[in-house]
């Protein structure tokens, strides 16, 4: 009898080892406390506390693929790692705009299932001495990918040609200077007045002493609005930011205050397309289609979202942005992918090539 129990226990143990898996989340970068890594670490910490009984997933851990501004990770996931069902991709807003505008080795959101999408928003602070009428607008371009909407929004306020790209670009050349290669120090440069506009996340704006000690010199100018994803409409509906300190600074409202009309037209649509991709898929977790672990991962993610301990830490560190899990994430992804049309994409590509100066192209696979 005793022997039987031992054998049963042993068989159970073996079957658990065979079925249960550690899930590997691929992070496109180094394991240092940057925005995406911090986000992933926070989620994973709480996900590991919310693994349900009977789950095939026993642990969530990380692999870091470094290089090519995250594009190496995208390529590695798309061409190789996704075929191992224990691998998931952590993707950020820069990856999303890279996928929209650049060659990323075939990486395509359509081919994966979103476990969760956690949209965000970016803010554009401005130096208080900047005079739109007389000064050139100076902003810093990090090396490609992810900052397109911020440059575009700030420029549209001084070049309000929302329906004519030729006029917009002519104005851009006259009134906007893009400073290339400013990887660091842009906060101080904005405070010093060397830059007139910047770009930040909510948590970096509110937690950065360079800004908070110099609120007499800098202020928030605008954010990009959020999308009301719950509506599941084909056309995104833009609403104000959830975070109380950002109320009333939505680009559309700031534009209307300045120019006395709502922004509209193809240039505005192209700007919004880059926002849709960058902030819509600001942080996300994807897995290959038909992975046997998808259901368990969705369940774990939902349990984590419902966990008050996670909510408390999330609100304090990531800001008040809702995450969309499972079927809801698929709706969000559908809206993001559905926002692409050829004419608008061409305008966005032109802006990147001619305005920001790095290589972009119209990708036919996004127009399907």
């Amino acid at each position, binding site marked *: 009898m005793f022997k039987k129990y031992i054998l049963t226990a042993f068989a159970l143990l073996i079957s658990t080892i065979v079925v249960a898996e550690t899930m590997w989340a691929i992070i496109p970068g*180094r*394991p*240092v*406390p940057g925005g995406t890594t911090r986000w992933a670490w926070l989620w994973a910490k709480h996900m590991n506390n919310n693994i349900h009984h009977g789950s095939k997933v026993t642990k969530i851990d990380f692999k870091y693929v470094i*290089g*090519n501004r995250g594009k190496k990770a995208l390529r590695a996931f798309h061409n190789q790692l996704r075929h191992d069902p224990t691998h998931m991709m952590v993707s950020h807003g820069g990856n999303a705009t890279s996928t929209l505008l650049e060659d990323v080795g075939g990486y395509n959101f359509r081919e994966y299932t979103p476990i969760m999408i956690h949209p965000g928003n970016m803010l554009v602070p401005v130096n208080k001495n900047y005079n739109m009428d007389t000064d050139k607008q100076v902003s810093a371009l990090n090396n*490609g990918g992810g900052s397109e909407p911020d440059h575009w929004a700030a420029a549209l306020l001084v070049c309000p040609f929302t329906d004519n790209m030729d006029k917009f670009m002519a104005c851009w050349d006259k009134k906007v200077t893009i*400073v290339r290669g*400013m990887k660091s120090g842009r906060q*101080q440069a904005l405070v010093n007045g060397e830059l007139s506009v910047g770009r930040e996340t909510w948590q970096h704006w509110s937690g950065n002493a360079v800004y908070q000690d110099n609120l007499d010199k800098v202020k928030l100018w605008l954010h990009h609005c959020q999308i009301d994803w719950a509506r599941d409409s084909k056309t995104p509906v833009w609403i104000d930011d959830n975070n109380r300190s950002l109320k009333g600074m939505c680009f559309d409202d700031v534009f209307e205050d300045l120019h006395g009309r709502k922004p509209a037209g193809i240039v505005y649509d192209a700007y919004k397309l880059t926002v849709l991709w960058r902030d819509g898929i600001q942080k996300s977790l994807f897995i290959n289609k038909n992975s046997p672990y998808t259901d368990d991962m969705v369940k774990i993610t939902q349990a984590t979202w419902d966990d008050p301990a996670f909510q408390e830490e999330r609100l304090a560190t990531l800001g008040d942005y809702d995450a969309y899990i499972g079927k809801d994430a698929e709706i969000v992804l559908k809206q993001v992918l559905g926002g692409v049309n050829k004419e608008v994409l061409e305008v966005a590509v032109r802006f990147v090539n001619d305005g920001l100066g790095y290589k972009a192209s119209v990708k036919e696979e996004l127009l399907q």
Partner: protein
Amino acid sequence: MDFSIILWAFLGTLYGLFIGIIPSSGSNKALILLFSVASYFWGMPYEFVAFSTAAAVACTVGDSFAGVYIGVPGANSAAATMVEGFPLTKKGRSSYAIALAVTTSGIQGLVWVLPVIIILPVYLNFVHLLMIPEIWCVIIFSFLSVSLLTSSNPLKGFVAVALGIGLGAIGSDVVGNARFVFGHPDYFYDGVSVVIIATGLFCIPELWELWKTKISYERQSSNFQQIKEGIRDAFRLWRHSFLGGAIGFFYGCLPGYGGMGSEWLSYGIATKMKRKFDTPFGEGAPEGLVAPEGVNNAGKAGALMPTLLLGIPGSTWTMIIMGLWQFVGFGIGESYLLEDQKFLNTVFGSYIFALLFTVMLSLCLAGPLSTILRINKYIFIVTIICVTWWACISTNFYSSVLEDTIMFFLFSAFGFACKYYRISRPAILLGFILSSKVEEYSYQLYDMYEFNQVITRPFVIVVIVLAILMVIFSRKIKVDYV
């Protein structure tokens, strides 16, 4: 400081002392080897900072052992120590020589780290005054100083800097477009890894030197009477010691230069100063031992200044340690880092801890520690080659083993060529480290400033005057520090 930080500083001290005692090793090699384990510290970057800082400091103290006991300098910086230290050993006064050297190095290291600790928080209040033109000027000044002061032929120095900048340009331009990727964008897009360049330039060629060096070891034991005398004389010779510290600190502070050869300058001045002992120089004169020993750790403290303040390395070891710290996530030279009190406490806490602990250990266990010198050099060389190769492939997560290995051999050959043709290797590494920075700041300067706005700034004028003075002074340099 947390217990874990102290623990890692302790381990770093032991590691650094061990490597430092081995002939022809030095802090550069000790730090390069750390790339092989850096990825294991990603979850604990402060511990890694403690470990690496302590290793660099302890290694510098350990350098004296080989010079004093067997007449082979631990690293270039200990060569001046050897001139007076080895004759003392031959006279049976090795414990005295070690005590004198180690105590001096420790005291001056402590004295000259104080200005750095005091200045850093003050600097934070003035950080807004240093704008793009000022930082660009300091970068160019660092190129000038390393070109002129490490090479007897300034042209060779400039060529070395240009080579480094060219190597640093491989990968992508300032907006992220691929550039000089030789048909392999996946491998080259992120540039050549700093560990490959540093290993090729500073590790493999030095191992060849060690291979050729004849080492004969005689058993040494601690003589506590001599150690007591050594400590006493280190205090008695405070003028020589302080002179060494001041020279080391000043040259250490010069961005890029790193004070190479300042030990000899200190030694040279010491020979002209009023003496306390009659022993002729070259035959074990304590003054001649104290003066260069005062330089080494004071120079390390000085080199931390431009590195931490501006992200412009003060010397070769800071170039390597910058790469290590950036690898675990610290953006060296960014102002937010100076607000990170834990980071600063870790750097200076582990520096002071390592200095005190190494000095105590060296004084108490000089004899037993000298047995490290008995390590078979061939085993050591092979081990180091294997570990540095491992460091090269592990920093890319073993994803490009073949490419990394080819680059490892290629840059080792390049390092040999530079040494043979006496092209300044520190200048190449500095050019490489600051390549992207100088490109970025040049673009920023061009995009945001007019020439007149730059040239009339007081800080810029001061830097130009210093540069002119350096050009005049550098004409006296007749030695290559390659």
